[in-house]
């Protein structure tokens, strides 16, 4: 069975709420029922059929084609199955998702993977602010799962994150890991200012020496970490070849709060 595909017909004149287009919701619906689902975010009514041309049948494998940065909430609260976005995604991509996989060939907007609890998101290019951060109405950021970002991430990456792993191939913005509770950020090209501000028990792994380090992190020196070996091997099993040398400088902080978090700067 071929993937259930939604091809954007033309640029809509409003942002779209695509949160209903998840496998759990579409599995039992006929093409006609799917086309009737409202996705408008203003008072001007807009249905799936108005905005998208539908092809394929397999609701466990959903594909979006030609979407842009105003196509919001793709895969929000996803509870299983796979979604591939061939194009860009708007805000709240995969927010509060529990299981399943989302892939984006372009960029995604703000709050990507916000407060997600499990599953995987892979964005090939950039993401906006507060990726892996706190979704509206939630108290914590990402609580589990795995996000990979090929390009840059906006400010407040992993804000208030509790668990999970976020890998950024490019540069992260200011306040990366801001107020993080626990979890891991792996930053290949560093971050802006105030990385790890208010970090309690989280790990920020820097593959390059960051330009700015908060004064509330205290240096524990360089040593070998079997944890990095474990992480490298697991990442390789996921198809990510990232060379983490086991040697790293460890800084503990943010000592302005609990101080049991860390920065591991690869040596």
């Amino acid at each position, binding site marked *: 069975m071929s993937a259930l595909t939604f091809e954007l017909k033309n640029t809509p004149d409003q942002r779209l709420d695509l949160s209903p287009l998840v496998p759990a919701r579409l599995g039992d619906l006929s093409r006609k029922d799917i086309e009737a689902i409202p996705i408008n975010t203003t008072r001007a009514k807009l249905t799936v059929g108005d905005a998208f041309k539908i092809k394929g049948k397999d609701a466990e494998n959903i594909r979006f084609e030609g979407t842009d940065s105003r196509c919001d909430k793709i895969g929000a609260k996803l509870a299983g199955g796979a979604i591939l976005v061939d194009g860009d995604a708007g805000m709240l991509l995969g927010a509060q998702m529990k299981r399943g996989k989302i892939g984006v060939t372009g960029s995604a907007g703000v709050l990507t993977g916000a407060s997600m609890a499990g599953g995987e998101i892979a964005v090939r290019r950039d993401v906006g602010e507060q990726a892996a951060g706190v979704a509206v109405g939630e108290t914590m950021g990402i609580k589990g799962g795995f996000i990979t970002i090929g390009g840059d991430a906006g400010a407040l990456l992993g804000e208030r994150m509790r668990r999970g792993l976020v890998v950024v191939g490019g540069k992260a913005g200011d306040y990366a890991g801001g107020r993080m509770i626990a979890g891991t950020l792996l930053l290949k090209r560093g971050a802006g200012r105030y990385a790890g501000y208010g970090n309690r028990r989280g790990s920020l792994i820097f593959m390059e020496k960051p330009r700015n380090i908060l004064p509330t992190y205290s240096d524990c020196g360089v040593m070998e970490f079997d944890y990095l070996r*474990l992480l490298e091997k697991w990442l390789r*099993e996921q198809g990510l070849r990232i060379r983490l040398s086991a040697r790293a400088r460890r800084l503990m902080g943010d000592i302005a709060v609990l101080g049991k978090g860390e920065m591991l700067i690869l040596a």
Partner: protein
Amino acid sequence: MPELKVKGVTIIETFAEAFPMVGTRVVITAPTLEWALISARTMTGFATSVIACGAEAGIERTLSKSETPDGRPGVAVLLFTMDAGKLQTQLRNRVGQCVLTSPGSACYAGLEGEKKLKLGASLRFFGDGWQMSKVIGGRRYWRIPVMGGEFVCEDKTGLTKKAVGGGNLLVLGKSHASVLAACSRAVKAMAEIPDVITPFPGGIVRSGSKVGSKYKGQIASTNDAYCPSLKGAVKSELPLNVEAVLEIVIDGLTADAISKAMHAGIHAIARGGAREGVTHITAGNYGGNLGPHHFHLKEIVG
């Protein structure tokens, strides 16, 4: 009934009687295979029999870098006891005293199992509040700061209640040297079989026991029917020309694994055994009423 012989060695038509056990596997890694082996040997030391060691344990096999979670050389260790509570205590004490303490070691789950045993979940308290939990791919690991760096230990490992202990072979021969050589070959052959260990020294027991004793409080005593020096004094099972008997005890995660190990063992003993002086292969049982697992030698040889 014709006598069953394999390459001139008589296989007695009897069976090995074995018991249900609970078992687990952990993977120990270290900077070198040598250090992983030191750690594993220490952890599985003094673990020949549940009679007085609390557990039966041994090295299942060594693991290459590609087989371990952290890409370092490793060793798979199997640990067995009679119930899950004891297994938990033994695992915690043995990993805590022998693996945590071993330079550069890390310890991971080696079995999925229907039930779980605490591994790092209890050892983490050694970190005195400085331990750090990391979840990678849905599995929780503890990083415990120690003088040598960090001890990485998986939170839990699996437990199986389908394990079997006490699979055995008794090897009779015309000289001690011949029986020892044959048993050494058998232990080597069994080491290639997955999911089993031979917990006794070098895999071989020279002092098989019977249940009970003439002395009060002694729960096991020498298996006089197989002692060559008592052939004329007791109801012996030994022909007059047998000078030595050695036993190989096998514990396994499944009954099937024990069958395979016994098969490999019998054929390794028979290989050149008769020429060396091995006369019989038999097995220990208690009449079949005590243990639910019966491994009939005749079926296993085939």
